[in-house]
């Protein structure tokens, strides 16, 4: 299937400031793609290029195969962009607001009744449809924003910091809605600073820093540390001070390292001597009880810190 977003060597300047410096990445259809970078990295500029608000100065930006310079209307019909700030007509009721965008997209009254009902149900806002937007909480307003983005049934959702400023419950609920949207076959391109949630949610990720792409690809590829000695996380039913001694006696174990603040240990194995299956079998044969075992992955935070540079961009 054709990529939904294709960005090749895109650069963008604001007066003397180079916001983007040859970024390149693709987004596959029906995936949830995370877009991460420090403040000032060029995330919002990239999003504005994709959603056709900005015209690219250099490089190629394609959305659904259309160049953003040439076929603006065709792209706009198929996307929904949620900016990083609340942009709502606060004097309207929730229903009016969605009805307004339905009419603005050219839907008839009958179609609007159905569409507005559907998006209200999806965002769980049907009980608040007659409330004025002004009186809603931040989390509720974010839901209404998301509902607005869904009014034209877009194939691609571009979400800029959708969880910023939300309380934990509202954030979790928002992530649930995004999962549901992915199940419905939407492609979601989400820019966020909340890395733990992105790691859980996204299929693929792009990390940019100072206008340059640092990584773009599957989330797994970023989190799996590429080392010669495979590393695993293990928790066994033994007091902490005895774990090290018990494990170093197992064949093929190179090192055992306790994990900070946890009762797990990180075990490095010699691939020429053993593998994960053999290692597990040896532990069990040694009479140890395994509570938890798995491949040791970097956290997205660690990958982000490794890939991005320290300090504030000039």
């Amino acid at each position, binding site marked *: 299937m054709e990529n939904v977003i294709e960005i090749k060597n895109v650069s963008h300047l604001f007066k003397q400031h180079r916001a983007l410096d040859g970024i390149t990445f693709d987004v596959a259809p029906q995936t949830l793609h995370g877009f991460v970078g420090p403040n000032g990295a060029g995330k919002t500029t990239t999003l504005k290029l994709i959603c056709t*608000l900005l015209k690219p100065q250099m490089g190629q930006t394609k959305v659904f195969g259309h160049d953003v310079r040439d076929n603006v209307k065709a792209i706009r019909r198929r996307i929904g962009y949620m900016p990083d700030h*609340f942009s709502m007509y606060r004097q*309207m009721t929730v229903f*009016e607001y969605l009805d*307004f965008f339905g009419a603005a*997209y050219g839907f008839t009254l009958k179609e609007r009744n159905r569409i507005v009902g559907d998006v209200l149900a999806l965002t769980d806002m049907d009980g608040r449809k007659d409330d004025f937007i*002004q009186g809603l909480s931040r989390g509720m307003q974010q839901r209404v924003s998301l509902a607005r983005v869904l009014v034209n049934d877009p194939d691609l959702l571009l979400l800029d910091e959708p969880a910023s400023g939300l309380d934990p419950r509202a954030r979790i609920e928002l992530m649930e809605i995004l999962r549901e949207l992915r199940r419905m076959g939407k492609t979601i391109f989400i820019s966020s600073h909340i890395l733990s949630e992105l790691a859980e949610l996204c299929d693929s990720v792009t990390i940019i820093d100072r206008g340059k792409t640092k990584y773009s690809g599957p989330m797994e590829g970023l989190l799996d540390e590429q080392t010669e000695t495979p590393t695993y996380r293990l928790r066994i039913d033994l007091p902490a001070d005895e774990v090290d001694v018990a494990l170093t006696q197992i064949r093929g174990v190179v090192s055992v390292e306790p994990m900070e603040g946890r009762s797990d240990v990180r075990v490095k194995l010699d691939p020429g001597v053993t593998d994960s299956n053999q290692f597990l079998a040896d532990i069990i044969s040694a009479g140890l009880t395994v509570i938890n075992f798995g491949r040791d992955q970097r956290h997205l935070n660690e990958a982000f810190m490794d890939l991005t540079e320290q300090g504030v961009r000039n």
Partner: protein
Amino acid sequence: MNKFFALVRRALQTETRLARSHLARCFLGGFVLWTLITTQFQMFFRGAPGLDLFRSVTYYNFFFITILGTAFFATSITEEKEERTLGLLKMAGVGAPTLILGKWTPRMIGAFFLLSIQIPFTVLAITLGGVLWNQIGAAYLSLFGHLFLVGNIGLLCSVVMSTTTGACGVATLILVVYHFLPMVLQGIFRNSQGTILGDIVLSFSGKLGEMNGFGSIGRTMTTGFSSSWWSFQLLSNLILGTVILLIAGGVFDLCTRNEKEEGTLNVFDRIRKRSAALSNRRVWQSAILWKDFHFVGGGAWFLGLKLFLYLTSIFLFTLGLAPSSNRFYEHLGGALFGWSAFFIVLEIGIMSARLYRSELSQKTWSSLVLLPRSSTEIIYSKLLGGLSVTLPLLCCMFLSLILIPDEFADFLGEVFSDSSFFLGFSYFISQIVLAFHISTYLSITQKWAHWPIAVFLSGFILFMANMMIGGCLFWGGSSGISEEPVFFMGCLLSGALILFIHLRTRTRLIALAAE
């Protein structure tokens, strides 16, 4: 005391760094210089060129203070409210008197700077002849009194209102009422002289008129003025200004107790909110038109209310002027037409300065531009929706045409039969359209151009530009040539300017969607 000086110092430092404050001083100084040059050219035709120069400069100052002074002082507290720094200042122990005086003093100093740069030029008026030191002193004191009053009205509005736009709007409304109420009251009660109510109202409106700086300057500028520098206007403006300043201090804590959330609804929004809740309205197929009909125009109920108020006021005004005339309906028709034309210009001016700015301040403009429609369609749909503000006045105008059809036909006949009149009329209309364009452009490009400032500043710019062009034509010795080519060239130039600003506004609006 340290806190007060810290506030004053910070404000003066900020003011010094801003290019616009230096530009404003340069603009006013340059304008005074230009007026001096034109007066020098004309001194052989005039009896008292110095007095003419000084009169012009003083009136420019008066308008400058009224328009920009309002905005200048109306931002004093609201800027802290909008930046959400008022709470921080209060937590740092800055009390209401310190805060008010700390905001008020640097603004007064700024206004003095603005007035002081022109004093050397105005003193030159004495060498041109016809003006006395007495008049200069009295005029500057009148201006100071006016500035003191206008500034404190702006300050009080800034304390009471939650946004700068609201504060500027209310301050402008107060000033409009203050300047025009005596005239309106005298019009309505002119024929009630001798009755208790009529005498009270007329005496009140007379005193209100004497308090007005515009009238006071006019009296100062009469040839042979020899009164004291102190006038009723100066004293009353200082006293009223001080009372308003004290009220601002008194209500400060009450009005700034809670910081309001961004996008808080104002009184009019709340009225509309209630009417919306009752009407269960559905969006029209032309969604943008619907939105601006309701949220800029005010919706059917609000427009109906406006129509009722306009009709009632104009009816009462005409009744006051000509209660027993057998040509009452002709007078009513004329008043309806004249007032409707005046208010249509005013309402379109206000609408043009609010229409796109409200989308930009609510950050909704990018959502609108992203609709799968051309930017042109979106921009003009909004304009069409915004023009609904004129519906009540168009109804009044239509009613006037029913009442005085012959007079209207005569007027049209005169416009089209006399080419000079036609071109003059066209030039006048083109200046109004140009003013709308300037006010729209200012409102979307300048952060400080809230609607009252944008509207009045655009009118002021055009008035000055026309004065300058008129002056240039006069020196160029074109006083003997026919008016027609002048108006024709004026129409062409205005048309070109309108087109240029129109296209610039469109380009800027599209660019603003991405900011």
